[in-house]
């Protein structure tokens, strides 16, 4: 573009670098708590990208949901693993399977990116911010059935977790 670099582009590149570095950090950090902390940096970068795309609602929900989720993840990492004693236990026998899954996902994403017809700044209209009410209307009218199904699914998962976690009455 002739008019040089816009502020949005600068912010985008900073966010992109942050996201890439932290995403690589998630998988290469030997320490599982470090991996979780890199994870939240990557997710914060995604929230920043959402902000650039003027979908503030999704950006904030991203922070709200994943902020708590990553804290819980750290707690699980601390309680269920020996993060302190054996920090290097990330590579196990399932390594070939993991590599295969990663390559499969990569192929799928590249396929999707290639297959998409991208709009150029000339062809695309200015981005119209989607209002919160529009999102609410869509969720609670058009997409109400998937919404209810997801809700029921989460409730089942929650009940299952409570059943598993609650101590046996007889054991006491």
């Amino acid at each position: 573009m002739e008019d040089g670099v816009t502020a949005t582009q600068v912010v985008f590149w900073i966010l992109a670098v942050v996201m890439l570095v932290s995403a690589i950090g998630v998988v290469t950090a030997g320490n599982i708590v470090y991996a979780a902390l890199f994870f939240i940096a990557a997710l914060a970068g995604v929230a920043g990208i959402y902000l650039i795309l003027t979908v503030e609602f999704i950006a904030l929900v991203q922070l709200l949901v994943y902020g708590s989720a990553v804290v819980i993840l750290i707690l699980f990492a601390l309680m269920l693993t020996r993060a302190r004693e054996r920090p290097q236990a990330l590579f196990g026998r399932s390594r070939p399977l993991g590599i295969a899954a990663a390559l499969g996902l990569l192929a799928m994403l590249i396929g999707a990116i290639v297959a998409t017809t991208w709009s150029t700044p000339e062809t695309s209209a200015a981005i119209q911010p989607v209002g919160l009410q529009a999102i609410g209307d869509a969720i609670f009218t058009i997409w109400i059935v998937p919404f209810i199904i997801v809700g029921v699914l989460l409730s089942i998962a929650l009940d299952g977790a409570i059943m598993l976690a609650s101590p046996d009455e007889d054991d006491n």
Partner: protein
Amino acid sequence: MVLSEFAGVSMPDWIDALLRVVFIVALMTINAFALIYLERKILARLQARVGPTRTGPIGTLQSIADALKLVTKEDVRPITADRWAFELAPYMAFVPVFLVFVPIPFTETWFIRDLNLGLLYVFGVLGLNIVGVVMAAWGSDNKYALLGGVRAAAQAISYEIPMLLIIVAVVMVAAGRLAVDGDASMAGSINAIVGDQTTTPYILLQPLGFVIFMIGALAELHRPPFDMPIAESEVVGGYFVEYSGMRWGLFFLAEYTALFLMVMLASSIFLGGWNWPFGADVGLGLQIVLTLVKTSVMIVLVIGSRALFPRLRIDQLMAFSWKVLLPFAIVQVIANGIILAYGGADWVVGLVSFALLAALFGLIYQLMRQRKGEGARTVSTTPATPRVITAPDVTPVEAGGD
């Protein structure tokens, strides 16, 4: 908008933005100084002491002396601590609190920026603060720090849910009212909610919301009676036990700023912020005074609660959130939905919320009556049951007594 209007001059955007940041930093520092002094004085009075008296007139310079001590103190890092987590944690705990100031309205026109999703923003960003706490807890490599941090995380996540639900209930009411004489899509903006309270503060429409919000705020801020994460007698200060000097100071700056923010948020949403009570508008000049008076009264109540209530046990705290506050918050949301969908008047909303509040207080009273027999872990509510029979059923209580 804020400062350029205040100074009566126009200036470039970036200077304006910079001035706003400087203003917030100055406010945070002065606020922390004032609150520490106030807390020591109020607690002292409640305990029949006088508090700090020697530094400055009636001890007013005590906080400055404390701050000087903190910045000149040696910054110790335990040799087994995780370097990065330990050193970055104070900033991670502090920065989100700083960012939350953006949508908070001091007066009708004094705010950093009025966000349409202001309430969601506050909770989304403030929730990140707990990441810093967990980083500090884990990075310190200290048993008590870890215990405190895990408690803080469990507590913050548990109390966030009823608080968010109650905010949903408030926004529902606000959207219904704003649809009449404004833009309903602005119901998430804090300034719009404050602006709607010219005649009726929302505490009258959502009294249950106010109570749940304040209980949740006390828990989120680790204030007594919910201060298990930092309880001296249990976890020796909690997640910042290994910190010293200015890093410790940053944690405290974050705590006191969060206290100010939460209380200011409560006074904005429920007490009408910069509005005169009940629509007696006397002019714009006193808006900042009104905001600060409402906030100050609430702060005195929050600080006073530290001397008035005994500390809860962690399992009681979690049970209270999940088994009492969350169901009440859900019922409030459903009730509001039904009333507003059928076009109920404001007084119906308020009446239902008052009824729910009465039910909540009744339940708490019932629970406290049961707690008196807690030592034997009997669930007998009938006074006729003889104590002797229940005595063999004694099970060891996991945590220690209060």
